[in-house]
């Protein structure tokens, strides 16, 4: 294969692999933000999820139990965030940072013994069976979690549009006054969306440690959980857009390693910055000062000025 197609295949592989954690965290964050709350603690849920998934998979031999444990860990962190933010005067952004630091700390604390051993990983679906080229085969070894993520995004979009539960979440997020007038229990709904959203972020972490890069160490997450929060803004709080946004960011994250496969390693470290720069540029392009964004929940304190 020539250089260009090698890079293209590597980018495709990267987009499919790197995007999955972005996808899960952004869907989860989308749900939480639709109910009018921000959870920056999803970064902590991601790291804790990665550790729990790896440890559980190693101890029990079942990677799927690991995914379940990751979801559980994420839900516990989401529960703390949801419960404390329900109190008066507690700032949800600051609380998110605390959950992020605390969750990361707990993950590092209990994860120490699991840095060395290798745990059973999640199986992949070999969609590249038709090709003889090794690169295409390995590029199309797609994790089932990727398809689970896409299915969840579609389901969530459908729920928001067509069900009573989706409408309830949207009302709570758009106008607390309207929700109160309708007799909705705002804090309980926000608590539940935070717990579910954080659980999804935990699954994103399980993907990191059990699929790609498929190991557990303290440098595993490099802010995917936070980039995903910005990604929701870019996706205009639409779960379907989260899919495209996640794929785009996956490709951006894979840019440096892909170019390295054809021997371009100049400025390798700069390519690490690509997803973050892309996020910033996207936010600058999508946000218009003084005007609220289409699709933005009215109760959200993120973009209010």
């Amino acid at each position, binding site marked *: 294969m020539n250089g260009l197609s090698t890079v293209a295949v590597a980018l495709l592989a990267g987009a499919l692999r790197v995007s999955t954690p972005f996808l899960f965290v952004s869907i989860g964050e989308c749900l939480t933000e639709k109910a009018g709350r921000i959870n920056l603690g999803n970064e902590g849920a991601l790291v804790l999820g990665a550790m729990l998934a790896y440890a559980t998979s190693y101890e029990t031999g079942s990677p799927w139990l690991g995914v379940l444990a990751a979801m559980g860990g994420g839900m516990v962190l989401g529960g703390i965030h949801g419960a404390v933010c329900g109190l008066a005067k507690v*700032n949800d952004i*600051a609380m998110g940072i605390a959950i992020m630091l*605390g969750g990361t700390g707990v993950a*590092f604390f209990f994860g120490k013994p699991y840095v060395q051993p290798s745990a059973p990983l999640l199986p992949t679906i070999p969609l590249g069976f038709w090709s003889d080229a090794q690169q295409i085969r390995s590029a199309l070894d797609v994790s089932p979690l990727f398809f689970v993520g896409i299915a969840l995004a579609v389901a969530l979009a459908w729920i928001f549009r067509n069900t009573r539960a989706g409408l309830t979440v949207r009302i709570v997020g758009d106008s607390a006054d309207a929700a109160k007038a309708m007799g909705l229990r705002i804090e309980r709904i926000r608590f539940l969306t935070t717990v579910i959203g954080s659980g999804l972020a935990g699954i994103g972490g399980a993907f990191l440690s059990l699929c790609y890069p498929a190991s557990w160490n303290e440098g595993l997450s490099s802010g995917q959980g*936070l980039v995903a929060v910005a990604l929701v803004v870019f996706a205009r709080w639409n779960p379907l857009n989260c899919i495209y946004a996640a794929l785009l960011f996956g490709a951006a994250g894979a840019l440096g390693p892909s170019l390295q496969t054809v021997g371009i390693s100049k400025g390798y470290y700069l390519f690490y910055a690509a997803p973050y720069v892309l996020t910033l540029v996207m*936010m600058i392009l999508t946000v218009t*000062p003084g005007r609220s964004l289409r699709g933005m929940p009215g109760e959200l304190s993120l973009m209010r000025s």
Partner: protein
Amino acid sequence: MVAISAADRAAEEIPRSREAATGRDSTYPLRRALEALLVPLMALALAAGAFSLFLVFLGKSPAEFFVLVWRGAFGSAFSFQNTLQRAAPLLLTALCMAVPAHLGLVVIGGEGAVVLGGLAGAAVALPLLGAPTFVIWIAMALAGFVVGGAWIGLAGWLRAKRGINETISSLLLAYVAIALFNHIVEGPLRDPLSLNKPSTAPIGDVNMLTSLPGTDLHPGLPVGILACIAFWVLIYRTSFGFGARVTGGNIRAAQLQGLPVARLILIACALGGGCAGLAGAIDVVAVHGNANASLAAGYGYAGILIAFLARFNPLAIAPMTLLVGGITASGGLVQRRMNMPDATVLVLQGMIFLSILTSETFYGRMKWFQPRGAVQ
């Protein structure tokens, strides 16, 4: 606008203290100070309790842990020295969070300003080698301050002019800063002699300022304390600070009053970022002697915790820095004696952070601390 209760309170303070001045409730200022002291203390006690439970659950002795923390942090002259050493950069990085917070901003990307400030300091010193050391120090401090200020100032500018959330942008910028730092340290400015640990060329032992002349104190310590005092004056005793606190209390009111809100945001972010950049430059001159990956040691993140502990009051930053610096300094001792991972400190810090933020909900809830006799 993100509502920060400290800023809310600043806006509320004005009518209340006038009440107090008329003599109707003369002990109110005292009770309010007591509330501001007792609530965080309660939160700290709660965090200590929760962490004790955590230790008991793991089969470790909480008493042993806290004794070790005390000994490792403040128990001897040597350990206190160690604590001060750790505390010095944190004074400045805490200001990076605390100063913009008075405008209601949550800037959490101080880490990026630290590494770029340190890099700028190391880079500017190299062509000046041979000049009087005093000149080199001033140039390094200025370079660190300017670069750090520009970096966080960019987040402030994006917030003021483009309406982009400063929490996310400052954090994204921190990741960009670390990538940029690695690129420069591994590439254009790499000292060919640094094999295992890529770093810039050393500024030379003669140009280092490892301790204050005549003492063993870290040079960042007096700089940090002076900066805290200066920012206290700026925030509570100048018209700039008043405008900032009004903006933090109610941005609409500030705009209607004709306050230059965008400029206030920009200046506050740039000053805060400058402090973090200065911390990086001082770390280079006092500890490393060049810019290498050790600069990204999490000073920026610890600073966030300290700023919240101090409720953004620059004068409260110093004692809170001692607390956090002490816990960090004792980490090694706890690790060795109790056979616990180094992340123990992170867990404790996380619990303190959670409990401090939760305690925000108690301000104004307890009746005894509230103004009396006035029409509510």
